[in-house]
C-alpha cells in the first residue's frame, strides 16, 4: 500500500510541477492545486498510514498520529486561500495587462517572430 501511495504522491507532484512550469496563469493555478494535494498527502504520510485508527479517543484500539492531521487540516484551508489569491491575481493580471501569460507579456519566440515578419511581407 505504501508503494502505491508514494507513487501517487510522486505522480501528482510531477504533474503539478509540469503545470506550474507552463506559461499561462490558469495552468499554473491548476498546477498549484495539484501540488498542494501532493504536499498535504506528503505531510499526512509523515504520521504513517493506518487503517481504522482515527484519532478519536475511545473509538479504536490504537490511534493514528493526530499531529500531522492537525497540521494538514489548516494547510488545506490555507491552501484554498492561496489558490484563491493566485487565481484572482491571475484575473487581475489579465485585466490590467491584457494577457494571461505568467510573465505579464507574451514572450517573442523565434517562430512567432518569423510569422510576424512573414505577415508583413
Amino acid at each position: 500500500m505504501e508503494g502505491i501511495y508514494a507513487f501517487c504522491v510522486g505522480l501528482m507532484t510531477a504533474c503539478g510541477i509540469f503545470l506550474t512550469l507552463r506559461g499561462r496563469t490558469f495552468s499554473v493555478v491548476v498546477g498549484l492545486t495539484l501540488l498542494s494535494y501532493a504536499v498535504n498527502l506528503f505531510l499526512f504520510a509523515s504520521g504513517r498510514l493506518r487503517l481504522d485508527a482515527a484519532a478519536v479517543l475511545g473509538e479504536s484500539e490504537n490511534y493514528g498520529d493526530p499531529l500531522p492531521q492537525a497540521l494538514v487540516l489548516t494547510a488545506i484551508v490555507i491552501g484554498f486561500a492561496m489558490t484563491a489569491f493566485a487565481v484572482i491575481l491571475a484575473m487581475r493580471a489579465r485585466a490590467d495587462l491584457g494577457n494571461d501569460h505568467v510573465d505579464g507579456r507574451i514572450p517573442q519566440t523565434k517562430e512567432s517572430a518569423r510569422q510576424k515578419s512573414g505577415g508583413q511581407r
Partner: protein
Amino acid sequence: MNTLLCIPLLVLLGTIVPLCSMRYSRTACAFLTAALPALALFLILDLAPAVIAGERFNVAVDWVPAIDLSLAFRLDGLALLFSFLILGIGLLVILYARYYLSKEDNIGKFYSYLILFMFAMLGVVMSDNLIQLWVFWELTSISSFLLISFWGHKSEARKGARMALTITGAGGLFLLAGLLMLGDVVGSYSLQTVLDSGDLIRAHSSYPIIVVLVLVGAFTKSAQFPFHFWLPNAMAAPTPVSAYLHSATMVKAGIFLMARFYPALAGTDLWFLIVSMTGLATFLLGGYLALFQHDLKGLLANSTISHLGLITLLLGMGSDLALVAAVFHIINHATFKASLFMAAGIIDHESGSRDMRQLNGLWKYMPYTATLAMVASMAMAGVPLLNGFLSKEMFFNETLHQDSLGSLSWMVPVMATLGGVLSVAYSLRFIHDVFFNGEPINLPKTPHEPPRYMRVPVEILVALCLIVGIFPSFIVGDLLQSASFSALNGPVPEYSLAIWHGFNLPLLMSAIALVGGLMVYYNRRHLFKFQAQFPAKDPKVIFERGIQQLVAKSASFINFFENGSLQRYVYFVMSLTIVVSAYPLLDLDATAGRRPEIPVDALSITGAVLLTLGSLGTVIWHRRRMVALLTLSVVGLIVTLAFARFSAPDLALTQLSVEVVTVILLMLALFFLPQKTPKESSPRRVVRDLGISAMIGGIVGTVIYAMMTRPLDTISDFFLENSKTGGGGTNVVNVILVDFRGFDTLGEITVLGIAALGIFKLISRMRLYMPSGNEQGRAWSEDRHPLMLSVVSQSLLPLALLVSAYIFLRGHNMPGGGFIAGLITSVAIIQQYVAHGVDWIKERLKLDYQIMIGSGIGIAALTGLGSWAFGHPFLTSWFDYFSLPVIGKFELASAMIFDLGVYLTVVGATMLILANLGQLTTSERATFEEDA
C-alpha cells in the same frame, strides 16, 4: 564616573551642541561647539603628567563578555600624543572654520560632522579592544565622507567623497579580517594582550596573512602607494577639513595603526620589506607629483602623501630609533602641514583662486600671512631651526643605519636624499610661485589679509614649529619619550633632540637636499615640459569608469537571473530543488525501511488508478481548461477518500468541502479567463519541463516511501494522553487545533482573513469585460436560475445549516469543528447564490463578510486574552461539565468559543472571496467611468 570614559563621551555629546546652537550667531555656535572638546582636552591635560611618568590608564565596561567584546578605553603615551593632536588641532580648526565658511554654509551641520569625526578619531587612538578600534576606524571613514561631501552640490566633492569612502572603507574591511584573525590567534581581543603576545603572533602560521590584511587597512587610510590617489581627490572638501583630516588626523590613523601594532606585528623581514618599500615608493612618488601640481591644495595633498611615506618608511626600518623618529615626525608634520593648509585656505578665501598659475606676488597684499606660510613651508622643506629639520635629520640618520635591502641598502639613503630634494623643491615652489614671481593674473578678488582671528590658528601652529625647532627637548621631549615608550611597548633607546650634532653625514644629506632642491626648482621649466609629454591621467575618471563597469557587470549578471519572467524563476527554483533534495538521498542506503507495509486491496488500487488517470488527464488536457478542471476535481475527490481511508475523518471532511469551494471558484475564474490555452511551448521546452517534473516527482516519491517504511518516533503520545484530561475533548485533532496549538491556529485564521481581504481589494478594482458567450461564440443561457434548483436549494438551506451546527458542536469530541462547520456553512450559502443570484441574496441575507472575519479573529484572540484574566498563560483553555434537566449532562469549554472564532473567520473569508467574485458576473459589478 571615570574620567577616562568621560573624554570620548564628552566629545560624542559635543556632536549635538552645534545643531542646537546654530540658531544663534555663528560665533556663538563656534564657541559652544568648542566647549566640550576643550573640556575633554582639559581632562586629558589633567591626566597627562601621570601618563608621561609612565602610568597607563584603562577603563573597561563589559558588553558581551562571552565573545570578549567590551567598551574599553586606554590612555598611554601614544594615545596621549594623538589625543593632543586631535583635540588641539581640532579646536584650532573650529575657530578657523568659523571664518572660512560663508554665511550660506550650514555651519551647525559642518561642526556636527567635524565633532563626530573628532569622536571617531579619538575612539581609534584610545580603544583598548580590537573590534571597538575597528568600529571607530570605520566611523572615521563615514564621518570623513560626510565632511568631504559637505559641498554636495559640487560634482567633484561627491566624486571625491565617494572615492575616499570606497578606498578607506574597503581597506577597513581588510583590517577587520586582519583584526579578527589576530584576535583568534591570540585568543583575546584586548589590545594589551595582543601587544604582549608579539612572539606568539610572529611564530603563527597565519602571521603573513594578518600582516598583509592589517597593512592594507593602514595603507588605504594613510594614502600609501598604490592607494594614494584618493587623497588629492579629497581636496574638494572645505579647507578646514583638509587641514584637520588630511594633514593631522585621519591620514595619520594608518600610521597610528602601524605604530600601535608595532610590538605585535613588526620585527620580521616581511614587515620590513612591505612597509619600508611601500613607504619609500610613496615618499618619492608623492614628492614628485607635488612638484607638478598647479592647485595649491593639490600640492599640499601630494606632499602629505610624501611625508606619510616618509613616516611609513621609518616604521619599516626595524630599529627602535627609527620609530622614535617616526613619532617625532608625526608631531612635526601635523603642525606645519595643518598651518600650511590653513594658509592655503586663507589665500583661497581672500583671493578667490587656488591655481598657482594665477596666484603670484601675494607678498604685497598679505605680507603677514605670507610670512607665516613661508615659515611653515620652510619647516616642510627641513630648514634648520624649524621642527621639520630635526625629524628629517633623524630620518636621514636612520636611513644610514639600516640594512633591510642587504647589499643594496646604500640605495635607501640616496633615495631619501632624493626625496629631500623634491620636498625642498615643492616647498620652494609654494613660497616663490605664490608670494613672489611677478603679479597676480586674473584673480576673481583683490587679495587682502584675512580677519584677525582667522590667522590665530596659523600663528599658534607656526609658533609651535619654531619653538619645537629651537627648543625640541624642552617642548616635546617628554611627550615623545612617553609616546615612543608605549609604541614600543618597552624601553626607549637613547637619542638626542639637539639641533647641532656636529658635521656628519645626515647634515651633508640635508645640505645636498637644500641645494638640490634649489637647483631643481630653478630648472623647473624643463621639468614641466618633460612632464607634459606624459598623457594626463585623471585617477577620478579611471576610478569612476571602474565603478561604472562594475555596476554594469553586476546589472547584466542580475538581469540574467532576474529578467521579469516568472517561468524562468520557477525553472531556476525547481532545478535547484532537484540538486538540493537529491544530494542527501545519495547517502540513503536503501529506499525501503523495515516497517511492515499494509497489504494492498482492490479498493485502494481502484482509487490509485482513478487518481493516476485524473492527474495525467489534467496534464494532457490542460489546454482545454474546463476538462482539466473536471479531471482535477476527480483527483481532489480521490484525495478526500484517501484521507477517509487512512483514518483521518477530519481531513476528509475538510478536503471535501474545500474541494467544492475550490472548483466553484475556479469555474467562476474560468468565466473571465480564456477557455483554452494556446499551444506555445516549444518541443524542447516540453521535454525539459517533463524531465524536471519527473525528477522531482521521483525524488518526492522516494522520500515519502522511505519515510513511510521506517518506524515512527512521534511526540503525539502527549496529545493523546492529555486530550481528554487537559483539553476536555476526545477528538485529538480538534483539541490540538483549538487548545494545544491554539496559537498556531490563531495565526492561521489571521492569514486566512488577510488573504481574503487582499483578494477583496484585488477584485474591487478589477476591469474585466464580461464575455457574452463561450469560445465558439455561443451565447450563455439567459435562464440563470432554474426554478427546480431554486426550490430545492431553498429547502436544503436549513438542513445544511443544521448539519453545520451539529458538526461544529460535536467537533470537540467527534470529527468536526470550526473549520469544517465553517466550510459547510459556506457551501450552503454559495448554493443559495448559485440558485438565486446575488440580487436575491442581497435582500435577504444581510451579512458583512469583512466584519465577520474581523469578529472571528477578535473572538479567538479575546478567548486567548481571557485566560490572562484568570492568571493563566495566553490561550489556556478551561472546561467543565454541567447538566440540564432535559438535555442531560453536557460540556462547556472555552475552546468552543475559540472554535466559534475559527468558524466565523472561515465563513467570512470564503464568502468574501466567492461572493465578490460571483458579483462580477452580475449587474452588481462595479462600473468604471471609462466603461460608461
